[in-house]
């Protein structure tokens, strides 16, 4: 606990060194997705009513409000739906800080999927990124946790 060095006339700033922790259970659908990634597979789930394929998988098709149970293994390639070249990142204190080197972030729709995954784009120059280009997933060999398995996408073909 400390007082801020604010030069404000009427108020003083105060803080408490506390950081509440959380642990979110991912549920059986995301569990299966992560289990698939561990084996190098992209497991999506298909709506029995409209045929939409969700990757990452969801329990419910939001459009049909139907529980989905049909699992489909999708290719590790997809289309770059959008991208951004990051010059900054959000630091632990919530502020934007300049990155040493800009980093590409892509939003990718795997072939056969109707929803997207967001990951880094590597093995290309920033100027080479194009919406619509074909990309391939690269998985981390020794991930620290399930969130690190999907490492990045690289150009394909």
């Amino acid at each position: 606990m400390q007082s801020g060095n604010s030069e404000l006339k009427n108020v003083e700033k105060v803080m408490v060194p506390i950081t509440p922790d959380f642990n979110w259970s991912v549920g059986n659908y995301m569990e299966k997705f992560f289990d698939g990634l561990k084996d190098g597979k992209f497991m999506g789930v298909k709506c029995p009513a409209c045929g939409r394929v969700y990757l990452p998988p969801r329990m419910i098709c939001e459009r049909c409000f139907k529980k989905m149970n049909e699992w489909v293994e999708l290719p590790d390639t997809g289309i770059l739906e959008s991208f951004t070249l990051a010059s900054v990142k959000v630091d632990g204190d919530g502020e934007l800080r300049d990155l040493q080197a800009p980093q590409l972030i892509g939003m990718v729709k795997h072939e056969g999927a109707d929803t997207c995954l967001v990951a880094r784009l590597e093995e290309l120059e920033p100027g080479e990124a194009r919406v619509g280009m074909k990309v391939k997933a690269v998985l981390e060999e020794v991930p620290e946790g399930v969130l690190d398995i999907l490492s990045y996408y690289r150009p394909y073909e």
Partner: protein
Amino acid sequence: MEKKVAVVGYAQTRYEPDSDASREILVLEVAEGALKSAGITRDDVDTVITANNDYLDGRTISNMRLVEPAGAWLKDESKVEMDGAYAALYAMMRILSGDHDVALVIGVGQASVYATYIPGIMTLDPTFDRERGLLNEVSAAALQARAYMNAYGITEEHIAEVSVKNLRNAALNPLALRQMPDLTTDEVLDSRMLYSPVRELNAFPPSDGACGVVLASADKVPGITGNPAWIRGVGFSHDSYLTERPLHKLESLKLAAESAYAMADIADPKEEIGLAEIHENFAHEELMAYEALGFCGQGKGGELMQSGATRIDGELPVNPSGGALSANAACAVGLARITEATMQVRGEAGERQVQGVTTALAHGQTGPCAQENIVFILGGE
């Protein structure tokens, strides 16, 4: 909707990066101000609705300590955890039920208190995106901007022109944070790059501030003011999570607008609406909003911008106040749009007054990539 609920009073604080007041005092100031502007006292108020957010305020049950400064002591009080325009919606519903006649609505945000971009990150899918460290409000907006530009051939210049228009307009608004009367497109395009194509001057400035409005039932309006801004229509909609929808259009805003237009009996928005106050957290969102609101065809937002129609002296001025790019106190932004639209139809907008506005549109949004949207149509007496 025929003259059932009207905005009869309003107040805003100055928007600042680091205000010399606590959240409670900001709320107190607009509560006092809005009641004074309506010419009523706390005793006349039946219900108080605040808009605030626990993660922004850094406290669970963030409305708990706002009871007294919001004038809600021993009153029927509730909190909407969304943009302030939704709090106005809830207050309007309460009045329409007939159980309440006068409502005080307050939205507040203090960016100097919270870890600026953390609350936005905390909205992400906790089972995947949240802890992967790539997505936040700004990077998500950048992905949306790129998708939109790519779909319709929109350029960075189109987007920069939104910033130029709004931040120049803001010079006419003494409460705005970013007032840049001489801003040029080149200056916007030279401003600090955050996530391409989003630069500092086409992203919102995190602000401290509050806004309050007083709503009244048709029975009570005549006793309060001869110059009400009637709520003629309202519509709102939720959209899918940002990785599960096409990002190049604002479907939920389109649905919200359709409902609002139906209620207000508006067939041709471009002709019938005299002015719009849009909640654009990022400059490209204003162009996307033009399309979703039916001011132009799909993909024609850039053309409409370049035509000059949305400038303060154009046929359909948008954000003469400077909009959300000029001042952005989370949870107060949409309510500020309602306030600015009210001031315009009442002819009280000072230097930024647009002549002859009888019908105005106000927009609010919640969530990354403008996921949830609400539209109000206001009309004068």
